């Protein structure tokens, strides 16, 4: 489903963020990518989201070469992938309901579909009674649940979560990971980047380890070994 084919990323100042990284991710997999800060985890994700272009190598989403997408095609592509970030990236001027509905509006869904699906995903992440609050009125865990709800509302094939628990306490961290596991059980591919040992060990899923821009380990039932 996703193929990174010998991807290298060099920045103008000579920094090598990725070096010949190759990785295949199958549908319905739950893959955790671990590594120290600067290992290249986020750069890999940015390649997948067409936020950065590789210096060499290619990235495929099914048969689509992401590098070859035109500027006006990129936003269409991004609608197929649900994203969750460490800093939540919610729209501050929109309520919880509107933040989630926004993702559906971008996908061109109609008002009655939005009215049906948004309450459903709010219920899934247990935020029904916070629907009309603004992000600044929510806790970190609640914000991240809104981000997850937004990521799943269009039923994407893949969710990319870049350090989703980085700003959360252990209890909220656990809640978020359980939600992601539930989503994966329902058939959505999850790519998670993290350096939280507890999360990795509790998952018992595939772990890809990165170091200095290279993929150094790939364990089917991995544990945190950094």
């Amino acid at each position, binding site marked *: 489903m996703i193929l990174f084919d010998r991807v290298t990323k060099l920045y103008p100042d000579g920094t090598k963020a990725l070096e010949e990284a190759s990785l295949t991710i199958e549908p319905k997999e739950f893959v955790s990518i671990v590594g120290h800060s600067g290992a290249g985890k986020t750069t890999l994700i940015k390649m997948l989201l067409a936020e950065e272009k590789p210096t060499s190598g290619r990235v495929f989403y099914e048969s689509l070469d992401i590098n070859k997408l035109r500027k006006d095609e990129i936003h269409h592509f991004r609608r197929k992938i649900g994203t969750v970030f460490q800093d939540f990236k919610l729209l501050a*001027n929109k309520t919880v309901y509107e933040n989630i509905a926004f993702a559906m509006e971008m996908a061109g869904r109609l008002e009655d579909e939005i009215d049906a699906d948004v309450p459903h995903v709010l219920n899934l992440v247990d935020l029904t009674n916070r629907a009309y609050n603004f992000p600044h009125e929510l806790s970190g865990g609640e914000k991240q649940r809104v981000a997850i709800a937004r990521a799943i509302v269009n039923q994407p094939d893949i969710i990319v979560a870049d350090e989703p628990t980085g700003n959360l306490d252990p209890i909220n961290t656990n809640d978020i990971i359980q939600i992601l596991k539930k989503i994966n059980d329902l058939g959505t591919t999850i790519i998670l980047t993290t350096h939280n040992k507890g999360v990795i060990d509790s998952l018992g899923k595939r772990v890809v380890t990165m170091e200095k821009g290279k993929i150094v380990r790939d364990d089917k039932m991995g544990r945190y070994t950094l």
Partner: protein
Amino acid sequence: MFWITTKRITKSGVQNFFRNGFVSFSSVVVMTITLFIIISVILLGGFLNYSLEQVKNKVDVNVYFITNVEESDVLSVKKSLEALPEVSSVEYVSSDQALVNFKAKHQGDNLTLQALDELGENPLGATLNIKAKDPSQYAGIAKYLDNMSSGVLSSGGTSIIDKVNYSQNKVVIDRLTEIVNSSNMIGVWFAIIFIFISIIVTFNTIRLAIFMSRDEISVMRLVGASNSYVKGPFVISGVLCGVISAVVILIFFAILTFVINHYYGSYFVGFNLFGYYINHFLQIFGTIVGSGIVFGSFASYLAVHKYLRH
């Protein structure tokens, strides 16, 4: 789908405008100042034109005829002058009327009136007062009169035109022409510079407001928003800013011109500031609302476009 998208973009723009509170308020304040300057320029321009017309009306060229001229000859000269494109009006003052005007002008001057009585007969001839459309055109009219002077003759063979007082007033007329032209030129440059400065300030304020939304813009793009979905709401907010500023300033000026006219009207030498504002309200409304919408939308569009390019 187009209407659904347009409705969503509009709703989002209006919502963002009000939810952004203080930032939107700052943009409205700055836009209001720009529109204030534009209306001020319009009203000052009206007052300047009025004043210059008053000054121009004070200037005229008088043609004095010999005392025993035939009225038909004078009227014939009047008709030919009226046919000139530079001439605005020609007023005929008969010799009898000239005498009445003279006596009224020198009412308190017993010496002059006594001297007039001793003359016995009316020493004043008929006069034509010529007003040109522009002070610069008097020279041409005077030349025409010079050429005519030799052509219109009395029965004795002398010219019926006794005197044309253009050359005596030439200095004043030339100076007034210069003043009129300079005032217009200064007025135009003044307007251009101030409007330009205020537009720059407005644009920068709106740019700053959008700069503060740069995180929102990047999130919208990450979630898959197209360019129109990102830019649209900001442009709508810009339009709303322009419209609100326009309404505020139009109401403000209605009150201001009324108050100025009521309490300080005498300073304007007959120019009815409030009356001018009301009489030209449709044009002013169109200019101000149009400017507000154009500046607001254009500034927002340019500012967002810059972030989307990166």
